[in-house]
């Protein structure tokens, strides 16, 4: 498994470097900067959004990078067990998801708001649901059409940001007793989504491995 992990690390090098930079900046901002005077904040906010997007979509990014010059054909002709390839992908995705949680956690230290916690739960749940769907297709098609499959990620993740994160920021401090469905959407739904995400991710872990062994790699 370590060889697959190493290969994914090689392809994730820049994502990991930027993640480390953003975490350090988040911590430095939380510890050293006066939030009122920090002109750095808009940049830092944007950097956090981008790095969370990159981390949660890293598995797709690695596949897309591997298809440049069709080098996946070279890598898959090396001594590779297909099931192990998928297994390492799942483990690596969990690793990257934990990193995204760490980024959001350090970001919440800067902005100190409990709503970021719910945002983190929702993003993690949606991220696991998307990954489950992606791997169901990937196991059948391998590297064919990986670029198209990235749309699978962008659409629901975009929806989460627009119709969950943004309303949550706007409704912060609002009297939700007037609009009770928002109470459910903002503070209960994330737990359901996370539970569904974990469940489908666990189920597709087994089905994807079985399917991958039956499919053409190229």
């Amino acid at each position: 498994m370590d060889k697959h992990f190493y290969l994914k690390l090689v392809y994730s090098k820049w994502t990991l470097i930027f993640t480390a930079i953003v975490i350090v900046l988040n911590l430095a901002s939380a510890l050293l900067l006066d939030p009122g005077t920090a002109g750095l904040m808009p940049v830092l906010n944007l950097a956090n959004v981008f790095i969370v997007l990159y981390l949660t979509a890293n598995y797709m990014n690695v596949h897309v990078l591997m298809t440049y010059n069709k080098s996946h054909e070279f890598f898959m002709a090396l001594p590779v067990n297909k099931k192990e390839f998928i297994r390492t992908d799942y483990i690596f995705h969990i690793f990257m998801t934990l990193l995204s949680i760490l980024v959001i956690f350090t970001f919440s230290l800067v902005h100190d708001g409990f709503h970021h916690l719910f945002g983190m739960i929702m993003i993690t749940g949606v991220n696991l649901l998307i990954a489950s769907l992606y791997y169901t297709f990937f196991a059948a098609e391998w590297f064919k059409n990986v670029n198209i499959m990235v749309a699978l990620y962008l659409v629901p993740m975009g929806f989460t940001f627009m119709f969950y994160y943004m309303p949550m920021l706007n409704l912060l401090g609002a009297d939700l007793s007037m609009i009770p469905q928002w109470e459910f959407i903002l503070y209960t739904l994330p737990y359901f989504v996370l539970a569904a995400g974990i469940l489908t991710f666990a189920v597709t872990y087994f089905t994807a491995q079985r399917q991958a062994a039956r499919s053409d790699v190229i």
Partner: protein
Amino acid sequence: MTAIQLKNVSKTQGTFKLKNIDLSIERGFITGLIGENGAGKTSLIHLILGLKKPDAGDISLFGDHAVEAHREALLNRIGFVFAEDRFPEKMTVPQLKKILKRFYEDFNAPQFDHYIRKFKIREKQKFKDYSTGERMKLSLAIALSHNAELLVLDEPTSNLDPNFRIDLLEILQELMEDENMTILFSTHITSDLDSIADYIIMIDEGELVFHEEKDLLLEKYRKIKGPVEILDAQTEDLLTGIKKTTVGFEAISDEHRALEELYGSKILTEQLRIDELMHHLKKGKGV
């Protein structure tokens, strides 16, 4: 013992079909795989390397039928060269070497370095800056550096300069001193096979045309030249791939002795080259 065995293997890819391929490639020999572009040579190699799954039939490598289950162990014993390079363009030799060390159980780093120097491959340059020949040499260096027992080479000489082509053929012949080594060599430069191949496999339009020992094959078939006047229905039945010109006809035949008895000095029989055999057999199919 067989290195590669295919039994009734079929595979459909779009409109192309590889049909009921039965093959048994013995260990310790160089087998040439010939056929036109699009005949199915690369598809066959992809099936052997487990990159594609057959729709029907059975593939075994080194006698092991559980190719999917033991894919990792089996591919450790196989060196491959693809017709087109598939290297990650932004990498360099040292970076790729680190990856190869992890992937191959028996990766021989000093041997790899030896071939890198011998083939004059630029180590610090990114692969995107390599020439086509240089990429092919790198492929060969990898294939020769993990103590593989089977080399699967897909058009390895097509982008090489003549000098290096000869060097490569010599290297392959040296490798064959190890009696466990097996080489499957796909090429359309059939002259390469004239000098090194023990067996020849020809496929055409996804079908196996023949799989025979090269010397017996070239003994069996002869090129026949003669005047057009002797061509009647009976004679034409004995000939394959007849090509008529203003000065006579040219064809091949595995009944050349009968033809010599029939027509004596009216016809001329000559030794065939592999490309001529391929050409006439293809023509004989009426394509």
